[in-house]
């Protein structure tokens, strides 16, 4: 081998060996973490060794996950990967489009079999409840803000998914189709740039539609004090792709003629005088400022003279909507079927329910696997 080549190999080896040894030692020395805020999951711990875990190979595969989960600078490396992706013109990472200054979640596949079960359960539940039911199926950024998708991006037709869903719901259920309204405001800040949720503004516009259908009267922005609670929100989509520099602002809309209320989280056994959780602003997932996150059942009791009692069956899109509903109802029972395992129809009587509202975003609803079971516990 030629001299310069040997020198080159030597120098490069020294640098690479240094990098590898530093990571090798630090990874073994630095204590393990329990969970990752960015990835929203528990991390693999050092696996326990047993005859059976050794035999079926589980020990070694857990060892691999342990090492990569606990790898030093994991989140920073993910951000480096994002930066390289961005620099080399990548337009999509897994199911997230890297749009023009925004991250946009792709339209999800429909879980057809489960969807039919869910619709049947919803129809049965609503027709037998004897109270007016409403269904608000929120579109996602990918269909409202198509213009922000990267060039040539092809996505499934979410409008068709929503149309099909609405068409299969019982005629007695009132469909709150907010797509036209959101379409009209599509240039505004309707969806977070780094998160899969809609903003309070989008929820507000949708609430205007909902209010007129539910007979709650005219609603205008002047009815609310709008406070920005954070300008450094990095949401779930940022976590998925490791984006850097993109940040969001979260606004809360507090009704001006606000009544006192008590929020009881029956799943986590906590009570509070506010639906906003200031503690959430110190965590990574700042969207949990609304209700403190998703919980199986939350009950709101208002100190007002309304005679209406709402049962809200929902996913996390509804968390932003609740601030608008509070003044109009005496109680609101909020059920998240993903975490609620009791008989929902019992609540109709015990809580003197007068209105039922379903509020979901399309991507979650098309994939949902818990609604049918939650609504038809009674049948078993």
């Amino acid at each position: 081998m030629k001299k310069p080549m040997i020198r080159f190999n030597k120098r490069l080896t020294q640098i690479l060996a240094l990098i590898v040894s530093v990571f090798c030692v630090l990874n073994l020395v630095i204590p393990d973490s329990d969970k990752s805020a960015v990835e929203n999951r528990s991390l693999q711990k050092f696996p326990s060794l047993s005859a059976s875990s050794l035999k079926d190979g589980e020990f070694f595969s857990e060892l691999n996950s342990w090492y990569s989960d606990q790898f030093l600078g994991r989140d920073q490396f993910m951000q480096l990967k994002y930066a390289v992706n961005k620099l080399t013109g990548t337009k999509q990472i897994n199911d997230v489009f890297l749009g023009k200054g925004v991250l946009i979640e792709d339209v999800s596949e429909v879980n057809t079999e489960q969807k039919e079960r869910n619709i049947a359960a919803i129809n049965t539940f609503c027709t037998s409840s004897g109270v007016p039911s409403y269904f608000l199926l929120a579109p996602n950024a990918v269909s409202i803000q198509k213009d922000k998708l990267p060039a040539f991006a092809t996505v499934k037709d979410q409008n068709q998914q929503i149309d099909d869903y609405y068409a299969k719901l019982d005629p007695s259920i009132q469909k709150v189709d907010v797509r036209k309204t959101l379409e009209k405001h599509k240039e505004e800040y309707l969806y977070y740039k780094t998160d899969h949720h809609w903003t309070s503004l989008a929820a507000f516009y949708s609430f205007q539609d909902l209010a007129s259908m539910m007979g709650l009267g005219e609603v205008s922005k002047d009815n609310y004090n709008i406070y920005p609670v954070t300008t450094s929100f990095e949401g779930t989509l940022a976590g998925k792709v490791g984006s850097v520099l993109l940040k969001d602002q979260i606004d809360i809309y507090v009704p001006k003629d606000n009544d006192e209320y008590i929020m009881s989280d029956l799943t986590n056994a906590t009570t509070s005088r506010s639906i906003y959780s200031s503690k959430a602003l110190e965590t990574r997932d700042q969207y949990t400022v609304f209700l403190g996150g998703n919980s199986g059942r939350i009950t709101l009791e208002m100190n007002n003279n309304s005679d209406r009692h709402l049962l809200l069956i929902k996913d996390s899109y509804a968390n932003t909507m609740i601030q608008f509903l509070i003044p109009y109802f005496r109680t609101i029972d909020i059920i998240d079927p993903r975490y609620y395992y009791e008989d929902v129809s019992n609540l109709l009587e015990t809580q003197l329910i007068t209105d039922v509202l379903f509020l979901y975003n399309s991507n979650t609803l098309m994939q949902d696997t818990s609604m049918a079971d939650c609504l038809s516990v009674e049948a078993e």
Partner: protein
Amino acid sequence: MVFNSLIFVFCFLPVSVFLYWIVPGSFVKNVVLFVLSLLFYAWNEPFYLILLLLNIAWNYLSALELGQEEDEKKRKIVFWITIAVNLLLLGAFKYTNFLLGIFGIAAFDVSLPVGLSFFTFSAISYIADVYKGTSPAQKNPLDLGLYIAFFGKITSGPIAFYHDMENQLAYRPLSKELFFSGVCLFAKGLIKKVLLADQFALVFSALSANTSMLGAWIYAISYMLEIYFDFSGYSDMAIGIGRMFGFTMKPNFDHPYSAISVQDFWRRWHISLSSWFRDYVYIPLGGNRHDYVRNILIVWFLTGLWHGANWTFILWGLYYGGILLLEKFVLKPYLQTLPKIICHLYTLVLVLIGWVFFFSPGILEAFSTLGRMINVVHPMDSQVLFVLFGNLPLFILGVLFSGTLYDRVFHLFMDRSPKRASAIYTFLYVLFFVVCIAFMVGSTYQSFLYFAF
């Protein structure tokens, strides 16, 4: 465990190198390396460790018998029985379900032991070398164990011949120079695998359902680049690891996509496998001295079958057998006189068509992809443009690095101004290595919308 995993690069490999270099004496070094190799193998599938050890024991004992026996007839019997057991083992795991499928019988649920196709061929190389008298039977079971099971080459080769490795088994001088070149080759292979092959794999899967003509071309081309960077990257890593422990193995790839005939391509693609078939099947069958056509077809049928238990692989092998015969009897004079660029394009297109058979799950699917490649009615759609524009730098790098240009520029630059070249390339390698880590971390990233317990 795969070479491109964090735990291998940052834990298993450095710890192994450290242990190997620190323990005294060749014998202890070999013990350490053999134990590490067994651990590496157990990592994939602990149960099959028994299979590997039985394989080593069987070939060790059979070769001793071959070495001692003087009666030619008995030697022949021992030789064929040994080979038959090796092949039966390979066949049982790899081809049983395929054969059952032909007769419409339901498949067994067995996983293929990692590297079985590779270490079986290594073992056969050993037995054949001892039988032919090229090499004496190995007295030391540890040395033979190392030849078959060394973790650098057990999972994906190269299928190093026994007679090439024989002198390196018992004793290998520690050479820093060799070590340094090994580390650099490993880094190069890792970069090829993680930053090129794995990214082309994403393009390939993104276009699997595309129905346009351009889409079918990009689909096939992305596979062509993926498999090259994947396999040659893995071979670079394997040979690099070998060097870290003092082994010298021959290169396995030599810029196959710069070939100017299909015959030339096969001198450059997976060299250890084609040499194996040449030395242990083609020449013993008679080579080009008698039954040439038959020999070629047998070799290429087996080459195809070796790659997997599916008709598509057999067809792929026979396709190459056919082209090689065609080149030999018809095309040779044209390939020698036509401009190089034409010969190069001719080779690339035929190899590309070959890959379509190779990657398709069935023969019908292969023809349907080939059909789309000439479907001028539906030239392109927005999905192809999306994938193409989102991966332009990848395709440019892929085309540049798969030819000889990169190596030529590198060596020219190194000759002209070694200091500057060395500084620039060191910087680039380190940069790409760090990006590699980022992509390796990225591939283990699983972010959830809702907290996953």
